[in-house]
């Protein structure tokens, strides 16, 4: 297969026909083409087992692709060259820390492993310690830190050598709202200068919606969509979303009647719930209630809200559970 080389040098991270298969199973990542622009926060979303982690590991050079290529600033990642490594910063999903080392020792160790000059390392470490509010704990062994502090340190370690591309794998998992707010603030600041690129994988649609300039949704190893969050939300329908919970599953006739009032979504995975999207949905609400009453089903609950990225996600990937 011919390698498409356009945009390779302008993309911070690029993938061309990236594939990964294990034994005789289906491909975990299937012909992934991707261009992540410099200076953007890119959200990579997908249900469990969609291929997100496999993709990230290939982009980091930790996993060898079955076929295809991955690039960082035009340089192929699989070469494992030290110049490539210096451009990458990683905050893994699990907090990978050495329990016996202190906060300062962690920053010093990782900085030195990236050959950061001693003076710069000292000043950068101090700055990160302040930015992530780790000052009081700088000399504490990590084993005595709370989960939130450990996650903050985990992120600080991804930044200590000043990488161009930062990969954050579910960085807010397990954080309290305060820590999460601090984290989101830091991530937003990272790309302000337009130099650094952040690749974010998360199961929090709110996080992806708030932080990402663009979002890619991956399922069964394939990239289903890639666009800005607002565009994606618009793509599933203009207006608001009305969720109606019923005492039992509606009949096909009832669903047909409701389609006159908007875009109806019904998923057998949640048999008693109907979702209707459309403009001015509140104006149509009395007629929707009448239509349901006529079909003898009883409304248990209703919710009216704007479209979210989660709606997009569920629409694209379905409601059936993964990892079965």
């Amino acid at each position, binding site marked *: 297969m011919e390698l498409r080389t356009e945009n390779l040098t302008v993309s911070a991270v690029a993938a061309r026909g990236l594939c990964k298969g294990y034994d005789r199973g289906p491909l975990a990542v299937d012909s992934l083409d991707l261009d992540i622009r410099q200076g953007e926060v890119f959200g990579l979303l997908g249900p469990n087992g969609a291929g997100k982690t496999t993709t990230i*590991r290939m982009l*980091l*050079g*930790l*996993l*060898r692709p079955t076929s295809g290529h991955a690039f960082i600033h035009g340089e192929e990642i*699989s070469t*494992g060259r*030290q110049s490539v*490594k*210096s451009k*990458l910063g*990683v905050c*893994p999903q*699990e907090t*990978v820390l*050495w329990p016996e080392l202190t906060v300062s020792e962690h920053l010093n160790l*990782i900085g030195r*492993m*990236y*050959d950061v000059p001693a003076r710069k390392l000292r000043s950068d470490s101090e700055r990160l310690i302040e930015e992530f509010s780790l000052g009081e704990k700088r000399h504490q062994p990590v084993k005595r830190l709370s989960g939130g502090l450990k996650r903050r340190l985990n992120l600080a*370690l991804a930044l200590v050598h000043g990488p161009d591309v930062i990969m954050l794998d579910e960085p807010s998992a397990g954080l309290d709202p305060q820590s999460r707010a601090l984290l989101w603030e830091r991530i937003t600041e990272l790309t302000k200068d337009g130099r650094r690129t952040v690749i974010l994988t998360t199961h929090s649609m709110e996080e992806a919606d708030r932080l990402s300039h663009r979002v890619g949704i991956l399922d069964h190893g394939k990239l289903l969509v890639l666009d800005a969050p607002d565009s994606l939300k618009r793509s599933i329908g203009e207006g608001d979303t009305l969720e109606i919970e019923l005492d039992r599953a509606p009949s096909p006739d009832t669903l047909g009647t409701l389609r006159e009032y908007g875009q109806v979504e019904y998923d057998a995975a949640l048999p008693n719930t109907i979702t209707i999207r459309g403009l001015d949905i509140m104006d149509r609400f009395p007629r929707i209630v009448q239509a349901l009453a006529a079909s003898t089903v009883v409304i248990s609950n209703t919710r009216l809200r704007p479209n979210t990225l989660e709606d997009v996600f569920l629409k694209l990937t379905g409601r059936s559970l993964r990892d079965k």
Partner: protein
Amino acid sequence: MRFVPLSLIVFKRMSRDLFTLFFAILFPAFFVFIFSMAFGKTGPMRNQRFDLAVVNRDEGVRVNFGAGPDTLRLGRALVGVLESLSYSRSSGWMSSDSSSSGLAGLDSLRFASRRPESAVFNVADTLQEAEALRKVSSGDYDAALMIPAGFTRAAMATAMQDATGRIFLGAVDRFSARSGSPGRKPTAAEIQNMIDDFARGPGKAQKKPGTSLDSLSLPSMKAAPATLRLAGDPSNLGFTMTGGIVKNVLDQFLKSVSRRSLEEAKEFLPAGLEPAGRDLVSLENSSVAVRTRTVFDYQVPGIIVFALLMLVSLVSVTLMLDLTQGHLERLKLTRMSTLDYFVGNTLPWLALSVVQLALLFGAAKLFGYHNVGSMFAGVGLVVLGSLSSIALALIVASMAKNEKQASIVSTMIAVPVSFLSGAFFPVRDVVILKDFFGHRLALTDLSPWTHTTRALVATLTFGKGFSAVRWDVLMQAILTVVLFLVGVLLFSRRRLTAQR
């Protein structure tokens, strides 16, 4: 009845970890093998050889067996017997190599089926006593056998005492028969007459055509007792074993000498009489008094080697923890090179093993270790031994699935290897090459820790210099390099490159 599903779960987990199960099952069998190597009889090739220095001062005696006067040297014959002793199950009783029998064949007494490759002793018989004792003291020899000047005289006297005793008893019987009063005891005067007759030689029997007993020149039965001395270090297992073997050989040798003598005189003997003479030859053990050592003195270097081998488990588990806890992956993302990783991991363990040596040495001194060499003489050997252990740990960590498996496998390799390396007791060797650059190469020589043990015993316990351990250091270094290369190659390919 909750134990049933629990047992099933445990069994299933065991059966699904075949790697660990394999070693768990083999471990006891392997121990049986090790102990058979140490104490069992597993075949003629699997035997420990003892180093025996012999100081032979035996002057021999002048004899004439009818073919003219000659000097009989039983000391030399005894050395030959010791040299010919082998572990062969089919070894015959002592006999002459030549067709000569009787007293004339004593000089060439040997064990019948001599097998040089499975000889019991490496005999060195050209040493002076002081040098022999010094070499025993320094551990070069397990024991030194001192054969006194009057050995042949005493041994022959014992034999002839038996023979002449039988002849005299025969004379008494004949006297009784001749006197016509069976059972009458001769008077003192009659006994004196019989002795005089015997001393003059009865001249009744022709030993060989033209030769009568009174024409033979035989050793006087009035010889002084002779005591052979076996010197060694009582705490050395090799000395204990050598002592037992030499005692048995000497008893058999003297019986053989006695039997030959009786053959010479059998025509004078009444039937059915067995030798029961006074034994003029004895063997006594003596301790080499240069320095009193204990078994512990021999074990301390072994304990050091055992500690070095325990590093295998520590290092492999640490490496596996690096892997399973994501530390290695985090480091792989940095600019860290393969060399960085190995050197960075090796140096702390080397430092630890040197500290461990110091602590172990200090504790050993506290508990009565009599070292001759300085602890510092062992530092280089310990560093080499540690490198071997780290290399083995790299191999284990390359193959293991998790730290638990690494721990189990490391222990199951390290403990038997420590025994096979002679850390606790000498093991019998399976010889691979009889001549390998001038040295005998045994199966256990393929373990670098065997050389560490030997070199540590030589330097720490016996205070020998580098020249004495040059071969072991060289072998240890070569084997360590080989093991390290294999370990680095495996670990790099399986753990430090991108996963497939």
